[in-house]
């Protein structure tokens, strides 16, 4: 293995997907790091107003990866951080076709451009634990070396497998570039807005009957820390990024104070498909696969290599619940109050019965 540490942090960093929640925050953190001279944000869309303030120190180039293929070399980029990976189709921006275009074709073109960039020495790619697929013969805990046993049904999971395939090709062609692939568990925080956070924010949440998936989350701040460290330090390889511990789906629903509505898997799939067509859907095959099989990863490699332990799944989820208290019908406080009331009631009745005797 070649050592890169002598070179220090890269001076020019290109970040893709800065119009999105994670991309904008990563770019902003990198721009605030004095060791990095220049941060360039690459995105075919303008960042929304809510993210614009984060991106003041970031030089924005509004272009897709194809148009920017020359730019990466011209700018003298030493590191490319690829975060333009969409987790779910966005009906307002072209749906699934656009999602695939961005995820798969976008990655292919970006990596082709990166391959021709002479000064490039670091590549960081956002991946997902969906890369492990979903099969009934899967081990309970995935390590980075676990191969997926079946091609997943979900669009996002298939895109992730394609993206990782392109990164493998890139590693073969440019072995001297340190390529870091980060497989993130679903991101969660008090402000993050993802398919899963919207799911847990509903008062009634559909679940799969007869299944109780094991879930893991990673807090957005920890994801940002890991992404930042992969850019300024050298950690080539593939790493699972997740909070230790497990929450069952039913347990997460209860902790969030929501009501679970168990539906048979087939019914849930068709209901989700109809809802998606109506434009109100939030659940896709990716989520159904997750809810049937669950997904737990081993993060020992991350902790050892990065010297950083993300906060646990339980803590990350607790922070999310704290921010979404409103609209929850069944809180822990109310349950405790009900418990006290019932207990006192029973005691009064029994005391009265004893008194009569």
């Amino acid at each position: 293995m070649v050592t890169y540490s002598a070179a220090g942090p890269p001076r020019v960093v290109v970040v893709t997907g800065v119009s999105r929640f994670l991309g904008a925050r990563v770019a902003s953190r990198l721009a605030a790091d004095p060791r990095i001279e220049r941060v360039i944000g690459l995105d075919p869309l303008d960042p929304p107003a809510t993210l614009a303030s984060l991106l003041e120190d970031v030089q924005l180039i509004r272009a897709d990866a194809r148009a920017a293929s020359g730019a990466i070399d011209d700018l003298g980029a030493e590191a490319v951080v690829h975060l333009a990976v969409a987790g779910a189709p966005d009906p307002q921006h072209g749906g699934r076709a656009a999602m695939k275009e961005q995820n798969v074709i976008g990655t292919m073109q970006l990596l082709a451009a990166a391959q021709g960039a002479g000064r490039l020495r670091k590549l960081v790619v956002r991946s997902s634990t969906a890369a492990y697929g979903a099969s009934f013969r899967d081990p309970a805990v995935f390590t980075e070396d676990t191969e997926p046993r079946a091609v997943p049904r979900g669009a996002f999971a298939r895109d992730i497998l394609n993206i990782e395939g392109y990164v493998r090709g890139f590693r073969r062609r440019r072995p001297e570039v340190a390529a870091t692939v980060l497989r993130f568990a679903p991101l969660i925080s008090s402000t993050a807005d993802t398919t899963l956070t919207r799911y847990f924010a509903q008062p009634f949440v559909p679940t799969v009957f007869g299944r109780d998936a094991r879930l893991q989350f990673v807090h957005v701040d920890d994801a940002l820390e890991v992404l930042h460290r992969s850019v300024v330090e050298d950690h080539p390889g593939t790493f699972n990024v997740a909070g230790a511990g497990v929450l069952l789906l039913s347990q997460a629903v209860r902790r969030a104070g929501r009501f679970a509505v168990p539906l048979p898997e087939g019914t849930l799939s068709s209901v989700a498909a109809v809802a998606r067509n109506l434009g109100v859907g939030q659940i896709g095959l990716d989520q159904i696969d997750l809810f049937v099989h669950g997904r737990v990863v081993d993060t020992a490699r991350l902790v050892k290599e990065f010297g950083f332990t993300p906060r646990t799944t339980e803590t990350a989820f607790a922070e999310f619940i704290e921010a979404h208290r409103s609209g929850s019908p069944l809180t822990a406080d109310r349950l405790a109050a009900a418990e006290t009331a019932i207990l006192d009631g029973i005691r009064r009745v029994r005391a009265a019965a004893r008194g009569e005797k």
Partner: protein
Amino acid sequence: MNPEESYRPTLPVELADGVRPGPLNGRRPESPVAMPALDGHRPGEPKSDAIDVWDRRIARGLAFLRRRLAGGYEVDDFGFDRELTDAIFYPMLRVLYKDWFRTEVFGVENVPDTGGGLIVGNHSGTLALDALMLSVALRDTHPSDRHMRLLGADLVFRVPVLAELARKAGATVACNPDAERLMSGGELVGVFPEGFKGIGKRYADRYKLQRFGRGGFVSAALHTGTPIIPVAIVGAEEIYPILADLKPLARLLGIPYFPITPTFPWLGPLGLVPLPSKWLIEFCPPIPTAHLTEHADDPLVVYNLADQVRETIQATLHSLLEKRPDPFGL
């Protein structure tokens, strides 16, 4: 909350008020490790010397319900829900274990008090009740309160509800990564290498061990240097005696066998009631493997060890059968 310490005294089922060791029993209104949340709930409690047993039971039951409804419990990476298993699953299985099968256990001192272990048993009985009874046996007779983590066929994890219950009771898919992870974590892992060949065999073949597969369980033990504890289970063969196996129907339904027993399918759901055979379970002395770790991938070592385990179980089965002349006796 640390479930290791606090879940036992808070079970809804009053397990052992009279028998729980402790010098203060009979005088204190609260057990020493009572739920802290309950302390605030008893402001106007009369200062009576007698323990109000029912008050404690109700309080515990309600606290348990509240914890379950609020999601305030913990599960491990495999989905094992310790609290639910001890409070709900084991008490239900104990009825079968004690009253129905009148199970007797021998050699439980051969199971280590701490650290990992691989418990390898013979499999029989059409439905895998022997695996469940073995876990109750270990839970009830072992002095160190150990749970057995079963390895199940992937068929179990395909079926809705069953998959959920199996994971919550501590089982996981029979594969080497899971077995090795559990054993390195110091868990006792239970495995039945005969698989469906064992539970689906006919009554005529009872107590004849079937093939042990490729010995994957041995290589998992060798990789982690975990001792192997063979265990012989007598009694499961008689609970649903398979007279015939309708293979074409089984293939049609996608299950490994379709049993015809004296009661199934003739009596419908009543055919699912197991016959009340007498059960004997014997744990054999552990076979150490720590010195063989470098041979984990040597097929000859693996095969010989698997054979040794198989012979031990078969011999123990014969000696147990001599202790039990009548399968349905007391």
